[in-house]
C-alpha cells in the first residue's frame, strides 16, 4: 500500500552538513551557557552569602586537588605548587570562617553586627583562594 503523501528522504550530503552543524550549535550553546551563568560569589547578595560562596569555592578547589592527588594525577612540582597555594589560603579561609562566627554571634544576641571585619576577611581570603584556583588550573594545562 502506498503512503498517501510521498516522503522525500533527506539527501546524504545534507546529513553530512547537518551533523557537524548541530555539533557546532551544541558547542556554541555550551559556551554561552557557561559564559552567562554567574559564579557563586557573583550571585551572593549579603556579606554572609559572599563569605559562604568564597569559602565554598575554596573547598571545591581543595577537594579537586586532593582527588587528583589520590588518583596519582597530581604529583611532583605541580603538586608542590598546589600544596603551597593551599597552605597559604587555608589560614586566611579559616580566618574568614572565624569572622562569620563573630558576625553570626553578634546578630544572635540581637545586636547589629559590623560588616567591616567580615568584609576585610573576605577580601584577604579572596586573593589567596584565587591563587590556589589559578595554581590548580595551571596543572591541568
Amino acid at each position, binding site marked *: 500500500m*502506498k503512503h498517501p503523501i*510521498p*516522503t*522525500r*528522504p533527506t*539527501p546524504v*550530503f*545534507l546529513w*553530512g*552538513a547537518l551533523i*557537524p*552543524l548541530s555539533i557546532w550549535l551544541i558547542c556554541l550553546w555550551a559556551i554561552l551557557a557557561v559564559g552567562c*551563568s*554567574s*559564579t*557563586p560569589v557573583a*550571585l*551572593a*547578595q*549579603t556579606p*554572609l*552569602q559572599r*563569605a*559562604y*560562596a568564597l*569559602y*565554598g*569555592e*575554596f*573547598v*571545591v*578547589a*581543595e*577537594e*579537586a*586537588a*586532593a*582527588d*587528583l*592527588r*589520590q588518583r*596519582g*594525577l597530581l*604529583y*611532583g*612540582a605541580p*603538586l*608542590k605548587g*598546589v*600544596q603551597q597555594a*593551599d*597552605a597559604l589560603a*587555608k589560614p586566611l*579561609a*579559616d580566618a574568614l*570562617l572565624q569572622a*562569620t*562566627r563573630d558576625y*553570626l554571634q553578634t546578630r544572635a544576641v540581637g545586636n547589629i553586627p559590623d560588616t567591616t571585619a567580615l568584609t576585610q576577611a573576605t577580601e584577604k581570603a579572596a586573593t589567596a583562594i584565587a591563587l590556589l584556583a589559578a595554581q590548580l588550573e595551571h596543572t*591541568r594545562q
Partner: protein
Amino acid sequence: MSTPTPEVEAVAPASTDTASPAYLLLPALLQAIAAGFGRTPGWPAIAAQVLMHLASWLEQSQISVSAYRELTEQLKTWVRDGRDPTQEDFAALLGRSNTAHAMLQAPATDPTPDTIGSDIPP
C-alpha cells in the same frame, strides 16, 4: 520523455537550489581533514592519545564541576529565598575543607607517584 512515477520522485535528490554552498562545502572540508589525518603516519596512536587526554580531562573535571554546580544552586536558592547561611552551613564546609586539606598536605608515603618527577627542576 516519460513522466516520473511517484516512487522515482520520492527518492530523487533535492534540487541544488535548496542547499546553500556552505552546506555543500562543510562535508567536503571535513572529508579533506579526515583524509589528511588518515594519511598521517601513526594516526591511530595520535587519535588514541587525544581521546585519552579528553577522557582524563573530563574525569578530572567531573568532581569539581558537580560540586561547583551544587554550590551555585545553593547560592541561587538562598538569594531567591532571601536567607543567609547558618553556623551549621559554615561548619559543614569547614569539615570538608579539613578533610581535603589533610589529604592534599599529607606527606608521600610511597615512592610512587608523588616522587615521580620531583627531581625535575621547575
